[in-house]
């Protein structure tokens, strides 16, 4: 009887302690998404004098035929897939380097944190300066290396602007992947490698047969985080290209922001939010499924 009382009280205290956090999370995360679902069934724009008018699936119908939306979705996918792939390879390389013991390792680790810690919006300007068409250092270096005759425009050309954005994104976010992978690497026992090399395996075989499989949970977690962030990329593109030239680097998030803030089309903006949200959730569910599977494999293999 007394045990039960204590449990009851613990439960009550637990709820009291967690309630403020849940309220704040609900206000900032749940309400806006729920509100977007609701608002997406209304037309609310300059045409309706910003009064909400119920119009069923009007916004979603419009979205199906909206070339600009599909273009932005394509741009987002290109940006996400290419930058994450490069980040993973590069991040793995840097993690392997940081995992070795050498003099000055502390300094190298600290440098690797710098890109992660700096504001994306601010460093986006730094990258715009680096890729400046007239005075940019990239142009100068390429000419000095004899790879180019004259300066070219980077941010004013569709493909090259996307390239510059991906470079900046990779720079900014590779450290995050490296840190996660490094933590995974450090948890792998050295004995495994020694035993493997006694069996006659070379370092590449060890990497494929020990490192990669044991690192799989960290890889998938890093990919999951990075996928969600890259899919919602805003700061970098807003600052570097604003989605231009001619919409060639406009991602879904830039389009959503322009729809709401520039065109004041709240109903359609809400529909865009809902669709992006659903796409993201689908991808996350798939990734979470893969993650649980890889964990099962790991325990099964041991």
């Amino acid at each position, binding site marked *: 009887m007394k045990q039960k009382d204590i449990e009851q009280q613990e439960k009550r205290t637990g709820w009291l*302690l967690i309630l403020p956090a849940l309220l704040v999370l609900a206000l900032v995360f749940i309400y*806006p998404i729920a509100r977007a679902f609701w608002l997406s069934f209304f037309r609310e724009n300059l045409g309706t004098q910003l009064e909400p008018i119920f119009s069923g699936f009007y916004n979603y119908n419009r979205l199906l035929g909206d070339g600009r939306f599909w273009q932005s979705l394509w741009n987002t996918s290109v940006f996400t897939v290419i930058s994450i792939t490069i980040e993973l390879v590069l991040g793995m390389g840097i993690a392997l380097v940081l995992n070795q013991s050498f003099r000055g390792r502390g300094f190298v680790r600290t*440098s690797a944190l710098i890109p992660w810690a700096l504001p994306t919006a601010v460093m986006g300007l*730094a990258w715009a300066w680096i890729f400046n068409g007239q005075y940019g250092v990239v142009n100068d270096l390429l000419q000095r290396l004899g790879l180019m005759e004259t300066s070219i425009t980077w941010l004013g050309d569709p493909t090259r602007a996307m390239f510059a954005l991906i470079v900046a994104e990779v720079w900014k976010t590779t450290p995050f992947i490296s840190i996660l992978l490094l933590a995974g690497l450090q948890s792998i026992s050295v004995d495994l490698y020694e035993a493997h090399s006694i069996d006659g395996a070379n370092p590449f075989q060890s990497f494929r047969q020990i490192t990669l499989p044991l690192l799989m949970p960290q890889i998938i977690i890093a990919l999951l*985080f990075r996928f969600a962030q890259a899919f919602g990329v805003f700061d970098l593109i807003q600052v570097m290209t604003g989605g231009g030239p001619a919409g060639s680097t406009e991602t879904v998030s830039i389009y959503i922001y322009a729809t709401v803030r520039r065109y004041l089309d709240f109903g359609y903006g809400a529909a865009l*939010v809902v669709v992006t949200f659903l796409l993201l959730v689908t991808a996350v569910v798939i990734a979470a499924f893969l993650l649980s599977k890889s964990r099962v494999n790991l325990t099964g293999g041991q």
Partner: protein
Amino acid sequence: MANISKAETTPKQSSRSLKSVFLFLGVFFTVIFCLAPILWQILTSFKTNEAIASIPTIYFPSFNQLTLEHYISLGLPFLQYVLNSAFVSFTSTLFCLAIGAPAAYTLARLRIPGENIILAFVLIVTLFPYVLLFLGLLEVVKFFGLGNNYLALIIPYTAINLPLTILVLRSFFQQLPKDLEDSAKVDGYNTVSMLLNIVLPMTTPALITTGILTFIFAWNEFIFALTFITRENLYTIPVAVAQLGGASVYEIPYGPIAAATIAGTLPLIILVLIFQRRIVQGITAGAVKG
């Protein structure tokens, strides 16, 4: 036997020196990759306008091509932006710890129904891009009349940092020895007083680790600051610097932008230099152990 081992030393040694060459290249590349853009920005910030606009690019400016004018041109308003960012980031960090620590303790130690659902919810929420939230929040901000009020930033910043705070602190709380709390209970502490007087003091390092991360994230946030704050003297650093860049299309002030980049991120660079280890610990605890 002796002969065999002698014959083996040569290839092993060469593979070792090959390895150290690779390692050196890897270290060299890592440092260049991470620091070059910021070093370039530092150099630009100290170059005169003529040196900045010179073709071919000047990598090693002479003494008379260096200047402090870009930093001086930022002037007092910039100091104001730094203070704004510091205030918003610091306040939201305090809120975040005050709300997040008790929640993390519940999830670590107290049994409540639906615990796993709450944890899953906290995990999923970390994946939301902020662009999905600003539309709904814009209405909330308007409804409460919070436009151009720091609460319009402090509340969202508290929220976006809560998941990380909860996950990191939860993993630290779980590592505490349970006996301690049991004996505190025998001594007559209730849960809240035990949390305040015993658990939190013991996890001060974890609170600092988490606080550094939330401070950095709040300092760097862009989209909410861009949307909810329109009065110039209330700008935070990311928005203030971005507005410098957009001030005029034809003549972009690269020198002042570079100076603003460095001056506006110096606090973060100092944090990284001092707390490198803690930051790494926090990132991995938040992502992997959750």
